[in-house]
């Protein structure tokens, strides 16, 4: 399903020679989000009727602009202005904005567009304007199937974000996670997938067996996760499109903590036997299993560097949980975490320069980042319980889960997804239909 991205980019970004005035710095916490006006996309009467019939949306142009607005707002870098203050009609604004009007409501950037129904398809064009300079910064059009309408909003956001920040966006993406229900002592857990903004939620398992720690393949078609099917905890592989599932390898004991290699050809995981957990890989093509770590301590939570040359993992070989790095063959093992406390769940950033982790210190849990040599440790957020960070594809945001403390009667347990920017700002709860944990962020679906 993800693979069938029915998406044709017809016009590419028009080359612009002007140096734009508007830009957003995302390397610092942004305390002054950029005021931006997202005009409803213009829509003609005929297209409106057609989309209404197919998608049950009264005004698709308005709906798509709301998706863009919400995405921009959630990023924390932009402040979408109230549409009520807009003075210009969408169709006229898209042709030639009256910059004085947009300036008046303090918009610095303006997004306009048009959506039409052509040959059973959805065609969208949009423009990004620099209000102060009075110039067009970007224009883009593409065609897709109408059912992809939410993705249209995400793609527009990605393009706007990229043009204004200079970095790729993360909006046309999905989150795979574990949906949770029921009492703390007997949680029902299901594999679930949703768009990055919480829409299009779908369950991928029924909840008959315990499932944990799903992770996307680099191309987002496959998911590897832990399932307790028949009470045998093993790493599984699931094809999201076909629903086909299979056990990874033939291990005489529990396999867990799976992740894909960056080329998608291998799965790296822990295998536990006789009280000892070590790290193994299995090649998905030839099924060859390789032992990577060999130590009487617990070695788990492996994660590859984006170039596939190194592996960061969690081990208690020093006596307590710490973070280590080794090469992809398991050699040159080096400990990198040396701060006070316990360290777990290291995850290599898609940019390659940082490792995100969970830290337990004096009864509090932290999500933090450090450089790959262990220097520059920075704790982003502190809580009663939180763990398992996963990077946005542009390496600017982390999603993780948080569990609440129960009261004296053991009531009030909840598990929720949260996200935070690498800057330590913009911490937010990610809305999910049910309680949720173990999030994994996909890469960009269209690229």
């Amino acid at each position, binding site marked *: 399903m993800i693979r069938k991205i029915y998406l044709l980019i017809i016009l590419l970004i028009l080359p612009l020679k002007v140096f734009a005035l508007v830009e957003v710095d995302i390397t610092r916490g942004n305390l002054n989000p950029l005021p931006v006006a997202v005009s409803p996309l213009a829509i003609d009467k005929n297209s409106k009727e057609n989309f209404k019939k197919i998608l049950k949306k009264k005004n698709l142009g308005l709906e798509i602009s709301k998706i863009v607005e919400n995405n921009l707002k959630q990023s924390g870098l932009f402040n979408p202005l109230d549409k009520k203050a807009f003075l210009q009609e969408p169709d006229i604004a898209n042709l030639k904005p009256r910059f004085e009007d947009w300036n008046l409501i303090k918009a610095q950037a303006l997004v306009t567009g048009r959506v039409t129904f052509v040959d059973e398809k959805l065609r969208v064009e949009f423009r990004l304007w620099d209000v102060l300079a009075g110039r067009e910064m970007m224009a883009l059009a593409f065609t897709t199937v109408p059912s992809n309408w939410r993705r249209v909003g995400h793609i527009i956001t990605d393009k706007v974000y990229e043009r204004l920040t200079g970095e790729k966006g993360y909006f046309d993406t999905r989150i795979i996670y574990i949906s949770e229900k029921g009492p703390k002592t007997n949680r029902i857990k299901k594999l679930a997938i949703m768009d990055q903004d919480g829409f299009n939620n779908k369950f991928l398992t029924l909840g008959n067996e315990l499932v944990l720690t799903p992770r996307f393949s680099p191309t987002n078609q496959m998911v590897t996760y832990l399932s307790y099917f028949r*009470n045998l905890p093993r790493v599984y592989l699931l094809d999201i499109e076909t629903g086909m599932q299979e056990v990874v390898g033939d291990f005489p004991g529990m396999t*867990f903590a799976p992740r894909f290699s960056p080329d998608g050809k291998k799965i790296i995981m822990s295998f*536990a036997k006789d*009280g000892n*957990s070590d790290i193994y890989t299995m090649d998905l093509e030839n099924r060859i299993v390789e032992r990577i770590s060999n130590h009487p301590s617990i070695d788990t939570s492996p994660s590859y560097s984006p170039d596939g040359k190194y592996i960061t993992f969690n081990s208690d070989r020093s006596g307590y*949980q710490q973070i280590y790095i080794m090469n992809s063959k398991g050699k040159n093992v080096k400990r990198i975490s040396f701060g006070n406390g316990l360290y777990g769940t290291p995850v290599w950033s898609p940019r390659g320069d940082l490792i995100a982790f969970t830290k337990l210190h004096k009864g509090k849990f932290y999500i933090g980042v450090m450089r790959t040599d262990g220097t520059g440790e920075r704790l982003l957020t502190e809580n009663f319980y939180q763990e398992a960070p996963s990077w946005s594809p542009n390496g600017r945001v982390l999603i993780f889960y948080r569990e609440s403390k*129960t009261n004296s009667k*053991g009531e009030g347990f909840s598990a929720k997804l949260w996200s935070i920017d690498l800057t330590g700002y913009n911490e937010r709860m990610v809305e999910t239909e049910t309680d949720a944990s173990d999030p994994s962020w996909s890469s960009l679906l269209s690229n």
Partner: protein
Amino acid sequence: MNLSKILKNGFLILIASLVLTACATKKTTTGQLQGDVYTGTDSVEYLASGVPDRVFFATNETVLTTASRETLRKQAAWLRKNSDINVVLEGHADERGTREYNLALGERRANSAKDYLMTYGISSDRISVLSYGKERPVDSGSNPLSWSKNRRSVTVKAN
């Protein structure tokens, strides 16, 4: 002058008593905890009369306490008497650790119990091991006593 002396002395006494109470809470067996290992019987079930089904562990530990070894010797005797019974040792961790590490920890705890049963003559063929990590707490509380009940290896009849 006098007043400040009195205050000073009073302050010293206050500090001394704080230090003493701090020591006291750390060292003594308070109710159902020894160190931070659970010694109570709240969640314990019995495989047979006088044969408790579970042993408890200290935080991040897989070492068996004296009480745990005694429990396991009872289990071993019961297993020797009932040679047709096989068991699953279910290893668990408390909620104060990362999910993946806890899966490994639960496996190690169950194996630590398994090894002990084996030294008392129980064949490894009769024992399988299953780690639940922190997925199946018996006590849903978020406090040291609840956590201590959840750090456990439970012997369950497999047939």
